[in-house]
């Protein structure tokens, strides 16, 4: 690898101070530090350091997202051919999925990194790794038929407004990928909900009874009597639960398969990148709120059929699990104290179910729940830390 090292060293003077392309130094730096962990050494304090760095941490999150991505690609094709009732091989489905998903990924990374590079060049900062994860999350939480220009605008908006204006990676208040999703949701509501974007049914005639709706919007009108994309009603709730758990339902690309999400969660928890406190308490919060709605729903509001979807089924439809595992655990926008994480996660679960079930205008609540709790996280931390401060003050008084 001496060859690459020499090559980089040779072009370095062009980018160094006084060089022709001095302004583009952040780009050179990004490339160099991507290929080589730099020769920076410790000066004092701890002379040895852990091998982990931000690049490896972010890379592990991407690894954890791969099961979701792969299944999402397959499911995109599967739903397409199911809606058209056409015979298709596994390869056909994957190819169709790639044709839909790859452009989204390319646009997301292209636009996001572009904005980030421009910002770093203007500011003279080194380029940080945060967007490597955001850039993968954004396509995974998009409906597969969303127009590419919308993804581009949303990504640019999110990187600029959610991240760079606050000072870049590590400084943001809101989760960047969710901000992109929320932007589209509010800027183009008709394009981002309803029944057009979740399944691609072009190039043929759809079967009878096909609606293209996700299970979430079905639940508003018919409770737990779910239909699949082919317009066939599931024989039992456990059957629709199984399909939702495995992911054979319409939805955003990465969110449908709870199994794939759990594989990702296992990777994140095992490597310690994500907080188990947030994931466990988030799921607990969703389950508790779902259960409460199940118990009081038929009494209080029998006309709201959503209330009657069993709580365990609620957990596996929509983006709930994906949000709890991959978005709520973003360490920068989450609560930062250990106790705070438990409260934060639990409240996300509660809020997600309330928004989803009680407010028919928002068939899914996890996005708004996480964004809302992102804003509340510093407040939670404040009170947790205040507890620690009070303990210290009390000790002073009794001493």
């Amino acid at each position, binding site marked *: 690898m001496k060859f690459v090292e020499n090559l980089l060293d040779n072009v370095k003077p062009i980018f160094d101070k006084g060089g022709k392309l001095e302004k583009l130094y952040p780009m050179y730096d990004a490339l160099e530090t991507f290929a080589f962990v730099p020769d920076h050494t410790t000066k004092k304090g701890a002379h040895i350091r852990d091998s982990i760095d931000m690049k490896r941490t972010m890379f592990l999150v991407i690894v954890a997202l791969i099961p979701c991505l792969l299944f999402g690609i397959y499911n995109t094709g599967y739903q397409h051919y199911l809606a058209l009732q056409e015979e298709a091989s596994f390869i056909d489905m994957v190819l169709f999925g790639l044709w839909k998903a790859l452009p989204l990924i390319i646009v997301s990374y292209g636009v996001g990194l572009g904005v980030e590079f421009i910002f770093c060049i203007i500011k003279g900062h080194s380029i940080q790794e945060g967007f490597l994860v955001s850039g993968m999350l954004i396509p995974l939480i998009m409906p597969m038929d969303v127009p590419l220009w919308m993804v581009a605008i949303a990504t640019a908006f999110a990187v600029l407004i959610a991240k760079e204006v606050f000072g870049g*990676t590590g400084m943001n208040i809101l989760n960047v990928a969710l901000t992109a999703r929320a932007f589209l949701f509010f800027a183009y509501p008709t394009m981002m909900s309803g029944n057009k974007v979740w399944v691609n049914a072009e190039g043929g005639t759809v079967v009878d009874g096909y609606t293209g709706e996700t299970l979430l919007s079905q639940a508003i009108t018919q409770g737990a009597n779910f239909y699949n994309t082919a317009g066939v009603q599931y024989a039992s709730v456990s059957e629709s639960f199984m399909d939702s758990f495995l992911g054979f339902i319409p939805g955003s690309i990465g969110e449908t398969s709870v199994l794939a999400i759990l594989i990702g969660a296992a990777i994140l928890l095992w490597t310690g990148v994500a907080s188990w406190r947030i994931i466990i308490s988030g799921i607990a919060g969703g389950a508790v709120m779902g259960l409460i709605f199940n118990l009081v729903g038929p009494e209080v509001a029998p006309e709201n059929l959503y209330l009657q979807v069993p709580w365990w089924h609620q957990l596996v439809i929509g983006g709930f699990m994906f949000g709890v595992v991959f978005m709520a655990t973003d360490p920068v926008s989450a609560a930062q104290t250990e106790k705070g994480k438990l409260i934060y996660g639990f409240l996300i679960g509660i809020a997600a179910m309330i928004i989803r079930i009680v407010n028919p205008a928002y068939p899914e609540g996890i996005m708004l729940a996480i964004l809302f709790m992102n804003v509340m996280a510093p407040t939670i931390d404040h009170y947790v830390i205040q507890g620690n401060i009070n303990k210290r003050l009390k000790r002073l008084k009794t001493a």
Partner: protein
Amino acid sequence: MSKAIKVKKGANINLMGEAEKKTASAQRASVFAIKPDDFFGTIPKLSLKEGAEVKAGTSLFYDKAKTRVKFTSPVSGEIVEVKRGAKRKILEVKVLADSEIQYETFTPWTGGTDRESLVNTMLEMGLWPFLKQRPYGVVANPDDAPRDIFVSFNNTAPLAPKASYALAEEKDDIQLALDALNLLSEGAVHIGVEAGDNFFGSMSNVQVHTVSGPHPAGNVGVLIHHVAPINKGETVWTVSGMDLAIIGRSLRAGQFRAERTVALVGSEVEAPQYYTTMIGAKIESIVGGKLIGDNYRIISGDPLTGDAVEIEGHLGFFSSQISVLPEGDHKKFFLTDGWLAPGFKSFSLSKAFPSWLTPGKKYRLDTNLNGEERAFVVTGELERVFPFEIYPMQLIKSIMVNDIDAMEKLGIYEVLPEDFAVCEFACTSKINIQQVVEDGLADMRKEFES
């Protein structure tokens, strides 16, 4: 009274090159130096000029603020150089040693209840700087009486010398030093020992606490935190267990007897073992001819908190360990040994590298940062290795924004940089946490002590 303290948070970093339990005399150094930077917060004023003749125990410099605190020569000879840095800051006061040491004579202290004469003897002889004050980690103020004095004999730092081995011959002197501390302390003298340690556990005139757990369990700060935490307005003193032998020996003899046993350790040392030498000895006299290769870093102290020194440099005042590690000043290709490599040679406290598969394995870690400095992103990793009821990240952030009020509330009085050593090791964002804490303590001191 004995109390068991079990520390759960922390981490042991297994390095290659632990010292074998074997002691030899180091080569006799010709030049010795005392470095004012070893004493945090001290502004040195020279007592004598270059060229002056000194005896062991003669004052080389004193503290501008606390003029009674003298820093004395470990050997007799001639002051050959006062090495200065930027703005004429004094870096080292060097003494060229006589072939045989002449001692200044002081009134010995072998017991009794006359606190004032003990204080005077210790000040004159140069033993006083061994007493550190918390908060701030500065040399104790002789006009104060501390709430308690704490000593830890359980050094859990990587490759640290075993006190019970290094001090095995000096039990009586250590007891005498503890008696002296008992007289100095308003309250008690608390000592922290390893579980099952009968050597220090049988000391009298002290309260013994057994401490177990991973580093930094053996830090005196952890002992204080678990026995009687420091509140605002309180001061306690601490002494390193390894320094007690010097204090006891010198008090008994009425002469500054600066011999100490140091462990020469690390993967770049051919045969790691113990050596007897003296405070301030030239590093070369201890490590000369014993190192492997030529690209190494010599650290006076342990790998997590020590100071980098040149081979021409000198042993630090408080150091009883010299660690030699490979220098990490080379680039690491991302696929072979960088961030995307399998990393079987890399060590990590996280499970992001396979080192968790081999918990007992010893590593040859170099001084590369293993990444670039970033803003804080990962949370919870510092808390796992920080055995205090303090929020480390929030405290560090409050220091970074220089919020004195928040620092105080979050517990800065209870900590010194060394307590954050494992946090600094673990930090994914490669923030120099110990430097931040040191700056915070300096700011606090400026705010309250001027």
